[in-house]
């Protein structure tokens, strides 16, 4: 579906994307995980055929976006980072007007709009203007709008940023359904839970480059341990502990507010720590996540 080799995007002197290789297969859910400014959105815009590449090769649906932009866009669905719905039109009109830009007949668009409002659970708001809808509803409408042309490939740029947990889960549920219907998804996110929930395969991006690639579980297995022990200390005491904590686990990360000890058994690491006289304010044993992978790869947190 998407084939990128040494893809580069420059804005003046600034290189936002510095040589990215990805290969997205039909039917999978592919993720770009990374902090803000990692180059995810720039990559997405190039794939969406709205931003010409500065260098490298890119094929989307087997075509070159620079040459066949409109033909590619005809078969894509795009959910931009910021909703750009027509706030002065109704929910239904938003879907119908947008559908027409794909050259779909009025009758088809009317049918499709009704179907999509059901899918996005917006049926009751069909004749309401978009302006007063909640953030979650607007987001669902944006996703519904991106489906109006039955796209083969759906691009979602930070689909759930700014939504409350309930709205996020509802959205994820809708995306699962699409995936099970065979739609290929490409998602950017800086939420590790979202990446873990949605993606079959993902790349971790940082500073315009790909730091690692694989399935969420592969990445965790490759770059982290089975468990993580988190220790918090009263202000000022953490530094003293860092000196004695070495060797308690396979690897240690020092964050401003806590210590992370990477080990296969968090409980036993905690026992060893107590044995050495470490007295944390609180402790937590948890499984490794993509956040830990990211920390390992870049030395920085995803969400700062």
């Amino acid at each position, binding site marked *: 579906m998407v084939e990128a080799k040494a893809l580069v995007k420059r804005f003046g002197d600034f290189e936002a994307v510095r040589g990215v290789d990805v290969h997205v297969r039909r039917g999978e859910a592919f993720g770009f995980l990374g902090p803000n400014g990692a180059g995810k959105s720039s990559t997405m815009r190039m794939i969406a055929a709205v931003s010409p590449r500065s260098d490298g090769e890119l094929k989307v649906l087997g075509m070159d976006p620079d040459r066949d932009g409109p033909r590619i866009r005809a078969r894509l669905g795009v959910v931009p980072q910021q909703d750009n719905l027509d706030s002065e039109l109704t929910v239904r009109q938003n879907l119908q007007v947008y559908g027409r830009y794909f050259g779909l007949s009025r009758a088809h668009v009317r049918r499709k709009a009704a179907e999509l409002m059901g899918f996005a659970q917006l049926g009751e708001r069909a004749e309401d203007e978009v302006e007063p809808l909640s953030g979650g509803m607007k987001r669902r409408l944006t996703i519904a709008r991106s489906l109006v042309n039955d796209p083969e490939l759906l691009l979602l740029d930070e689909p759930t940023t700014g939504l409350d947990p309930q709205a996020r889960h509802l959205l994820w549920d809708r995306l699962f359904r699409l995936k099970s*219907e065979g739609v290929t998804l490409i998602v950017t996110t800086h939420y590790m839970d979202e990446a873990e929930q949605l993606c079959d395969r993902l790349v971790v991006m940082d500073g315009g480059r790909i730091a690692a690639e694989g399935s969420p579980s592969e990445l965790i297995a490759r770059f982290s341990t089975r468990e993580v022990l988190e220790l918090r200390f009263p202000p000022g005491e953490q530094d003293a502990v860092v000196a004695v904590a070495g060797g308690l686990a396979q690897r240690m990360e020092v964050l401003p507010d806590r210590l992370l000890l990477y080990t296969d058994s968090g409980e036993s690491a905690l026992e060893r720590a107590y044995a050495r006289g470490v007295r944390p304010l609180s402790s937590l044993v948890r499984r490794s996540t993509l956040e830990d992978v990211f920390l390992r790869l870049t030395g920085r947190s995803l969400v700062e």
Partner: protein
Amino acid sequence: MTAPAPGRVLGSWRAAWLRVEGHWIWYRRYWTSTLYSTGLQPLLFLVAMGIGFGSQVEPGAATGGLSYLHYVAPALLVASAVQNAVGESSFPVLSGFKWQKDYVAVTATPVTAGQLLGGQLIWVGLRLSLAGAVYVLIAFAFGAWQGAGALLVLPVAVATGLACAAPMMAIAATTYDEGARFVSLFRFVVMPMTLFAGTFFPVTQIPGALRWLAWVSPLWHGNELARGVALGGLEPLPAMGHAAYLAAVFAAGGLAARHYFYRRLVI
């Protein structure tokens, strides 16, 4: 496995026309809110200036021996078309890029930035035609027309409006502030143009050294054409000159707008 997507690529005219269709759906919801600016305001000016102020004017050399109402009616239509066109091409276009971002949404579909611009221009042209037609009818009721030539004032007004709309859209596409620039533009360019480009009095009353300012304004050319077709006395050669000037401004503005639309939407 999904079936191939039913979306397809459209011809340029068809794509631009779909944009017009989108505007039309907006208009069907909001036409009442445009009644005043497009329908009533030109008529208020016609009554105030043509009839009220005109009552104080003795027909003379300046008005070509005509009553002031007859003199000013064609030019008022052109001037209001220009004002409308500039208004429709400033904040609404900037909003498409910046606030509402509907331009960003549309260019994610097979519709290109150029087709988007085309649709916007066609839409402005249609709006101007509609408002102008209303004006022509009501001005007729006031006895402001001298003959059937008045019907030709409408296309002249729409053409002049579009000649101003195209460069204005280019400016809007290069505007990144909150539109403070437009306010200055209205005050320094559009307003003086309306006052001095031969709408209310002949440009010969302007001191010779400054008269070129009126001559370069599209409105003066539109006014000359409009008076020519409504009141007669227009030679073919100057008429072609005025029309060519308007066409040139439209073409240059349109090409610039196209360039800046692409530069802003395809980055």
